[in-house]
């Protein structure tokens, strides 16, 4: 489905963000990209739809080499690639419906979009998606009237209305509370499964990545240093990706398991506090 071959990116500042990335994502797979800030996660997914131009290498979506496309061809292929953002990237002063329908901009001409005359089929799909993400009552609200979680749902609906083959997701939960984060991750992965989409998710939260992704790719300083199943992510692997840290302390219990959390809290409380 998605194939990256020898992809490198060097910014004009001389900063080498990506080094020789090789990555293949099959249909229907959810891949979580983890790694410290500045490891090149954002650059990597932006190279796929060429919001950032890769300096070297080839990127293929199915049989199309994205990296060789002209401006027009690029616009065409971007319709097949949905994107979800950390800060939701909605247009605040437009309504929820307008934001969702903007996912169809690649399919309608300028006047249709200017006059908001979208084909009825698009509107039907938009209503369906809004129902699926639980925002049917908010159709006419302005995007800036929504909470963070609701905004991200709008972002998800917009990306899916494109009818994409591939979803690029950039830190979808970084601005959300833990509960909403889980709901959003579940929603993204469920919807991807329903539609058989390949998904690449940048994420900081390692336990969340392990919970929802089928495969983890660890980046460090622009290179892939781990590529394997979520279970394979050991303390040693985390140290390779992020550097030295006391990884086991936070990993004693699965936070999903409430009893274990309580046990952990109790254990913490039992220990004498270190003097300041």
């Amino acid at each position, binding site marked *: 489905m998605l194939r990256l071959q020898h992809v490198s990116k060097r910014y004009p500042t001389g900063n080498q963000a990506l080094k020789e990335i090789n990555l293949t994502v099959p249909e229907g797979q959810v891949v979580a990209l983890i790694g410290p800030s500045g490891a090149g996660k954002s650059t990597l997914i932006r190279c796929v739809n060429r*919001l950032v131009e890769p300096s070297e290498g080839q990127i293929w979506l199915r049989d199309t080499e994205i990296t060789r496309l002209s401006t027009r061809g690029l*616009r*065409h292929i971007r319709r097949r690639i949905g994107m979800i953002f950390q800060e939701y990237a909605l247009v605040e*002063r437009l309504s929820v419906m307008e934001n969702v329908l903007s996912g169809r901009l690649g399919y309608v001409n300028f006047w249709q*979009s200017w006059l908001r005359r979208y084909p009825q089929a698009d509107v039907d799909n938009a209503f369906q998606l809004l129902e699926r993400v639980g925002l049917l009552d908010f159709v006419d609200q302005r995007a800036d009237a929504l909470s963070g979680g609701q905004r991200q749902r709008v972002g998800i609906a*917009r990306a899916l209305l494109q009818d994409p083959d591939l979803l690029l997701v950039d830190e979808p939960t970084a601005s959300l509370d833990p509960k909403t984060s889980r709901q959003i991750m579940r929603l993204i992965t469920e919807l991807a499964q329903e539609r058989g989409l390949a998904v690449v998710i940048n994420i900081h939260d390692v336990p969340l990545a392990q919970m929802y992704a089928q495969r983890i790719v660890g980046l460090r300083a622009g290179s892939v240093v781990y590529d394997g199943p979520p279970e394979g992510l050991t303390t040693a692997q985390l140290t390779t990706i992020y550097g030295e840290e006391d990884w086991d302390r936070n990993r004693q219990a699965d936070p999903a398991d409430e009893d274990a959390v309580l046990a952990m809290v109790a254990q913490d409380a039992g220990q004498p506090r270190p003097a300041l």
Partner: protein
Amino acid sequence: MPVRQIDDRKLWQRYDTATRLRLWGGWIGTTLVVFVCWQVISGATRWEFVADAPQQLSQFIGRMFPPRWGYLNELWLPLWDTLNIATLGTLLGLGIAFPLSFLAAQNTTPHPLVRYVALLIIVVSRSVNSLIWALLLVAIIGPGVLAGIFAIGLRSIGFMGKLFYESIEETSREPVEAITATGASPLQVLSYSILPQVLPSFAGVSIFRWDINIREATVVGLVGAGGIGLNLNASVNALQWSQVGMIFIVIFVVVLFSEWVSARVRQAII
């Protein structure tokens, strides 16, 4: 270095000694310049004229009062012209400043060269006062309302264009990225991600310029570009001070009115 070590203690001050000295030097220098300027100005002033000023002023006002209320009937048409000059001039400026600002903004310009040309137009428009534009235009297209409209319009392009392109440059990048990622065309990206962000500020700037233009439109008549200024000029030349008084009252009321309208509209937008 603002941090100094004395024994084993660290002292912190906002500025180090050299910077403090420079700041003091700056203050003293400024004071001296003001003092010298004052000297020059006072040397070039005939103080007996200044001492005379309150008397002159009261005489002047005395000549204007009571205003000639009957003259009001002759002012309705020039007043209407003035409002039209201001409104149509603002619309003309808006029509040109709107596309121009997208060419001038760093994040929407098609090419740096286009940007420089657009910026040049904005600067030229801004650097010439409405009254000077009117003077030129009266010479080119003859006296009358049309010259006034063009004068106001030309001056407004720079004002609105500059504030417009600044607000385009301040838009947040994320929605632009998101709309681009859907495969939208450049024009769709503008209309869906930039335009909704700048529309409130565009509307606010336009109404503010209209408010300013009402005032300017009362003046362009002085050089023959139509409106109530024509009457003002004629009355001053004929030493009809009671008519001048009447005109001032009318202008004052109109300016109050425009102030009120623009305040209401701005409230409605935000």
